[in-house]
């Protein structure tokens, strides 16, 4: 009964000065709108930029570094008086990973692993007339690459599945294709460092967002690349692993390095700077949002103070007729909180609308073929944080005036008349 009465009185006081109330609420609405829009937009950008690298980067990459044997021949026989051995160079299979079938099998059965994509990297020359251009062909398992690393999103022309279905096909980097004036359906010539020559049919164009990369990189199927290099179907140079939990990458990287006796690199080591960039952008958006809310809070503080001076008589008589200081305080905090609640609620609504509007603004950049409009993130988390912030700030802004109102001495007011 008491709470309902207090809400009733708060409502009456609010509606009596509805213009001031509206101004206060609009302040909150505006700041929450900006808060939601900013966070949504910033995080949309974060997601996009992270995706640019992180989506395509394996969480753990297994490979063989070309390096000298750690046990040199001279160490094998300690009984020799003097040994002179010169020019020991790395040899063997080079970049090939040993025992790939078993490793792939083990990884596919690992519960922590989302998927595995084997890869062969081949150095080639694209032949343009009598000029050779440096290039790299990535031999990939098309379906795994598409499922794990969003391969299809970066194929700007042509169908990525043709890579698997058409024999001896290639998806050229956009830059490389421009240099060769090659289009879909054309046949291009490539030469391997070993001198092998091969004709490949262009089935698509690839745009990674990094122009320099596109001048060099191309994609072919695993089998085509292995054939190009004259290697067997066991020849794999990289195994790209995607995990369920990206945070486990460093630990698993160490573990795989030990078990499979290969080199391993995790995503955190490879791309440490990306986390920092995302964090800084988030901090900026929170700072702006909170600053706006604090300004709105001062507005509410002022309006409540004014209301208390105006309603001095009402407060006095409420106290004289049996409302305690606490009751009066609750009336004014209720006023502040309802301004925060309704202002915040409309802020969320307008924030959502502005976000969708931003989402419609065209954003065409050659670097990002699959992005047509500004990216926006609609994570409900931001909406919950927004309404919580608005309630907390308005409560704090209302606290001081409410305390003042609760301390008003009715005798002073009534005798002063």
């Amino acid at each position: 009964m008491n709470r309902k009465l207090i809400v009733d009185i708060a409502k009456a006081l609010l509606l009596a000065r509805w213009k001031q109330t509206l101004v206060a609420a609009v302040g909150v609405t505006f700041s929450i709108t900006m808060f939601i829009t900013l966070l949504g937009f910033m995080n949309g950008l974060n997601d996009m930029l992270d995706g640019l690298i992180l989506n395509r980067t394996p969480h753990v990459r297994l490979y063989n570094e070309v390096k000298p044997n750690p046990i040199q021949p001279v160490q094998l026989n300690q009984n020799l008086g003097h040994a002179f051995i010169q020019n020991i160079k790395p040899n063997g299979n080079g970049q090939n990973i040993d025992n790939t079938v078993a490793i792939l099998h083990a990884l596919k059965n690992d519960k922590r692993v989302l998927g595995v994509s084997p890869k062969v990297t081949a150095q080639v020359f694209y032949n343009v007339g009598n000029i050779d251009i440096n290039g790299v062909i990535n031999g990939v398992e098309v379906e795994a690459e598409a499922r794990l690393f969003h391969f299809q999103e970066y194929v700007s022309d042509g169908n990525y599945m043709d890579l698997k279905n058409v024999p001896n096909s290639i998806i050229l980097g956009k830059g490389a294709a421009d240099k060769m004036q090659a289009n879909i359906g054309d046949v291009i010539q490539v030469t391997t460092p070993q001198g092998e020559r091969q004709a490949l049919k262009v089935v698509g164009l690839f745009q990674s967002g990094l122009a320099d990369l596109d001048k060099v990189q191309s994609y072919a199927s695993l089998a085509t690349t292995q054939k190009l290099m004259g290697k067997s179907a066991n020849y794999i140079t990289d195994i790209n692993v995607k995990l369920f939990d990206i945070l486990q990458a460093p630990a698993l990287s160490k573990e795989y390095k030990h078990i499979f006796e290969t080199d391993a690199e995790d995503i955190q080591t490879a791309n440490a700077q990306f986390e920092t960039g995302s964090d800084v952008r988030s901090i900026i958006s929170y700072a702006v949002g909170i600053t706006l809310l604090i300004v709105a809070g001062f507005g509410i503080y002022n309006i409540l103070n004014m209301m208390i001076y105006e309603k001095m008589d009402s407060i006095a008589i409420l106290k004289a007729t049996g409302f305690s200081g606490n009751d009066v305080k609750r009336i004014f905090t209720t006023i502040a909180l309802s301004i925060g609640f309704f202002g915040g609620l409309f802020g969320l609504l307008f924030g959502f609308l502005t976000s969708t509007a931003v989402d419609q603004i065209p954003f065409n950049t050659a670097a990002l073929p699959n992005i047509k409009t500004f990216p926006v993130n609609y994570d409900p988390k931001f909406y919950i944080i927004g309404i919580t912030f608005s309630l907390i700030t308005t409560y704090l802004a209302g606290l001081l005036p409410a305390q003042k109102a609760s301390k008003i001495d009715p005798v002073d007011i009534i005798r002063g008349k």
Partner: protein
Amino acid sequence: MDEIILEAKLINKSFHDPITIPVLKDVSFSINKGDFVSVIGKSGCGKSTLLYILSTMDTDYTGELFIDKVCMTGLKEKQLALVRNEKIGFVFQFHYLLNEFSVLRNVMLPGIKLAKFSMQEIEHRAMEKLRILGIHEQALKMPNQLSGGQKQRVAIARALINDPHIIMGDEPTGNLDKKNSEVVFEIFSQLANEFNQTLLIVTHDNEFAERTHRIIEMEDGRIIR
């Protein structure tokens, strides 16, 4: 008729700003149930100050105050608020109605606060009080639509809503013209005579005071009659 409703024992009060001036000096008296008492005295004699101490709103005094045989001295602010809500009705020189609420709602407010009866019952009781004061036809109007005399009668109805032990008035006719003052006095004496209501009215209208059951006259912080 000699059940004591309010009793003051040796009440002293001083103002300390800028220098200490004693306002009330050893004031002791008691009021019985059904008494219609007026307090008179010259301006500055301390009669209003005494009233606000008796009303429990002013707690800065020495001495003891009993309302309904319960000691008020030293009670917490919250407990005193409850006492005011339940046992004391106030009528001031100014009506202090809340402009945001209708006349009926204004009368109901202390009743809703006490929450002793259901909403319907409080509304019924409020209409009853307004009818006694002859303004039940104005019940649904807003306070600013009423005349000064009508507003003061609404304020009296509000004071009556919780059936208080005592009604305290601080110059309740001070702002009213002769005719309306007469109406208010008639209401007070009707309440005292018909409903056995205890009243304590501070006034400087001697004519008003002469017609009450008992007069307390003050001078320089003491009761002289």
